[in-house]
C-alpha cells in the first residue's frame, strides 16, 4: 500500500478552562482542563475523502484546526507524507501551507466583509507569493469560473452573494494556492439542502479534476456517507471507530456508531422506526471514567467503567469497544 498522505498519531489537545486566578483563590477551586481531543490516531490516503463525524464536544473541529496549524497540539504528531510538521520551522511551514487549505462552516463569517471577492481569492496567492502580480487577476477569473461564478464577480463584495455563492468563493480561495489537501469543516451545514447538493457535487468534481485529498468534518451522517471513502467516529474527543464508509453504515461496530445511525431520520419512509437514544453527551470537563460512552451504552459492562478501551481491529476497520473484540490493532 502506498504511503498515506496525512498521518496523525496520538493527537491530544487540552484547553485551560480555569476561572481567572482571583476567582480560583476565592472559590478554592483548582485549575480545570478540558480535553478536547485525546490520543487520536488515523491516516488519510492520497486522493481519498476521510470523514470525521461526531456531535458537539467530540473534538472534530479541534482536530481540523490542529492539522491546518490554527492550534498547536498538546501532544502527538501530525505528518504529511511521513514528514512531521514542525510549527517552529517557518520555511517548512510555508511550503506546507501551500499544499494544505481549509474550507469553513459559515460562508457569512469566512469572507472578510470589507474585501472585494477578487482580493479574498487572491490572498493566498499574494501571501505565499505564488505568481507574478500581473497574472493574479486572470487567475482569480479562472478560479471563479471553476467554481461556477463569473470573472466579473471579482469586483463585488461578499454581501452581494447568497450563502451558496459565498461558499463557492471560499472554495475558490482554498483552491487558489493549488493545494493537494483540503480540510472541509462542516462545509454545508450552514446551507439549505438544495444548495448543499450543489456544493457537495462541486467538491466532488474538483476532487476528481485536481486529485484532491479531503478531510471532511461533519455531524451529518448522510453527507458523510455521500462524500467519503473512510470514516472516523469521534465521541468526547476520542476516536471510537474507524471504518470503510460503506461497511460502517451496514456493520457499525461501536454501540455509539450504531446509535448515531439509528438517530438519523428516515426519509425514505421505509417504516424503520428511529430509535430514541437515552441520555445526553456528558460535560467534557468531567467525562465519565473508562469508556466515555458507558453511561448511555445499552450493552454496558463492569469493565467499561474501569478502563478506556483501545482501538482494536474489527472486520471493518478499528473500534474502541470491549465488544468489538480482537487484539489491539496497530496504527496503520
Amino acid at each position, binding site marked *: 500500500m502506498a504511503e498515506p498522505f496525512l498521518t496523525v498519531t496520538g493527537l491530544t489537545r487540552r484547553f485551560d478552562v480555569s476561572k481567572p486566578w482571583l476567582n480560583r483563590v476565592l472559590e478554592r477551586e483548582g485549575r480545570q482542563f478540558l480535553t478536547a481531543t485525546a490520543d487520536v490516531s488515523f491516516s488519510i490516503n492520497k486522493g481519498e475523502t476521510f470523514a470525521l463525524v461526531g456531535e458537539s464536544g467530540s473534538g472534530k473541529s479541534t482536530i481540523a484546526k490542529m492539522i491546518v496549524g490554527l492550534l498547536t497540539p498538546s501532544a502527538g504528531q501530525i505528518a504529511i507524507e511521513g514528514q512531521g510538521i514542525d510549527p517552529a520551522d517557518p520555511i517548512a511551514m510555508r511550503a506546507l501551507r501551500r499544499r494544505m487549505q481549509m474550507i469553513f462552516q459559515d460562508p457569512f463569517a469566512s469572507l472578510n466583509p470589507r474585501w472585494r471577492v477578487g482580493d479574498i481569492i487572491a490572498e493566498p496567492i499574494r501571501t505565499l507569493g505564488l505568481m507574478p502580480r500581473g497574472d493574479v487577476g486572470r487567475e482569480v477569473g479562472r478560479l471563479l469560473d471553476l467554481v461556477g461564478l463569473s470573472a466579473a464577480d471579482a469586483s463585488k463584495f461578499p454581501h452581494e452573494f447568497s450563502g451558496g455563492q459565498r461558499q463557492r468563493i471560499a472554495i475558490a480561495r482554498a483552491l487558489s494556492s493549488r493545494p493537494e489537501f483540503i480540510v472541509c469543516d462542516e462545509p454545508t451545514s450552514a446551507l439549505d439542502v438544495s444548495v448543499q447538493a450543489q456544493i457537495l457535487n462541486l467538491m466532488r468534481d474538483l476532487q476528481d479534476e485536481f486529485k484532491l485529498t479531503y478531510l471532511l468534518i461533519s455531524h451529518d451522517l448522510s453527507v458523510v456517507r455521500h462524500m467519503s471513502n473512510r470514516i472516523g467516529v469521534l465521541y468526547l474527543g476520542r476516536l471510537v471507530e474507524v471504518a470503510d464508509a460503506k461497511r460502517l453504515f451496514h456493520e457499525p461496530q461501536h454501540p455509539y456508531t450504531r446509535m448515531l445511525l439509528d438517530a438519523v431520520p*428516515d426519509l425514505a419512509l421505509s417504516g424503520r422506526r428511529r430509535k430514541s437514544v437515552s441520555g445526553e*453527551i456528558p460535560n467534557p470537563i468531567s467525562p465519565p471514567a473508562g469508556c466515555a460512552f458507558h453511561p448511555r451504552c445499552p450493552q454496558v459492562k463492569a469493565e467499561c467503567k474501569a478502563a478506556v478501551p483501545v482501538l482494536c481491529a474489527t472486520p471493518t476497520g478499528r473500534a474502541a469497544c470491549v465488544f468489538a473484540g480482537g487484539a489491539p490493532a496497530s496504527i496503520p
Partner: protein
Amino acid sequence: MTKPLLSVRDLVVEFPTRRGTLRALDGVSFDIAPGEVLGMVGESGAGKSITGAAIIGLIEPPGRIAGGEVWLGDTRIDQLAPEAMRRLRGRRIGMVFQDPLTSLNPLYTIAQQLIETIRTHMDVSEKVARGRAVALLDRVGIPAAARRIDDYPHHFSGGMRQRVVIALALAAEPELVIADEPTTALDVSVQAQIIDVLKEICAERGAAVMLITHDMGVIAETADRVAVLYAGRMAEIGPVRDVILAARHPYTAGLMGSIPTLQHAADRLVQIPGAMPRLDAIPAGCAFNPRCPQVMDRCLSARPGLKPVAPNHAAACWLADTGVTHG
C-alpha cells in the same frame, strides 16, 4: 373533514424597506385539523418562520400582515389587539423556538416560570399549579422533576432545556403548538428524543402541532401533512407520504432528490441549479421558473395557483395534473 382548528387564508406579510415593499408571504393558505401535525418546510427565507410569527402576532415591525385571514376555531386572530393576542398566546397557542434560551428567562427558576404561566391562564392555587408543573416536567422526561424544578435554566443541558420549553408551551393546555426549528440547535442523538417527546405529549393532549423546520427527515418522521414553501408562496401541500414519495411540484421533487440519504449512495446528488430568489427579485409568473427543469412559456408570465391533484394534496404548478418528472 372535521372543522379545522387553525385556518389560514391568503396570508400576505409585507416588509416595507426603503427600496420598496418586500412580500415575505404571498397568499399562503392552509388548515390544521385538531390534533394534527402539519410540517412546514422551506429554505431559509422561504417564509416558514414568518408564517408562524404571523399566526401568533409576533411579526417584527415594520413588517405587517397586509392581507388574508387567520382563524383559530371561530375566532379571527389576525386583527386582535396586542393585549388579546398576548392572552391567546400561551393559553390557546403554545410556542417552542429553536433556541431554548430565548424562551426561558435566565433570572427565574423553572418553577417560577411554569407556575406563572399556569396561573396566568388558569384559575388555580399556587400549590395546584406547582403540582401540575412537576407532573409536566416529569412527563417531558426531566429526571427528578420535583427536585430540579427549582433550578435555573442554566443548570440544564440543551436537550433538557428544550424539554422544559415544551413543558412551558403545554402548561396551559393549548389547542395548537407552533414549534419553530425545535431541534436545530441540538445534537443528532438528542434530536430524536425531543421530537418524540413533542409528538407524544401533543398527541396525548390532543394539541395540534405546526412544526416548522428545514429538516425533511424530521418532517418525514413526525408530520401527518407537510406544506412546502418557496419564496413566500405555497408550492405544495399534502400528506407526508405523498409529498415525499410522489411530489407534484418540481421544486419539491428537486428538494427530495438533493438530500443525501443513508440508504443508497448516489455518485452525484440531484441538484437544483441556482438559489431561491431574494424577496426583492422574485421573477414574474411562477417564482421557481428560473430553476425549473420543466419550465414552459406559461410559467414565465402566469403564476400557478394551488391546484388539488389528489385528495388532500395540492400543488402550485402548471404541470401538477399532467405529471412532474422526478429527479
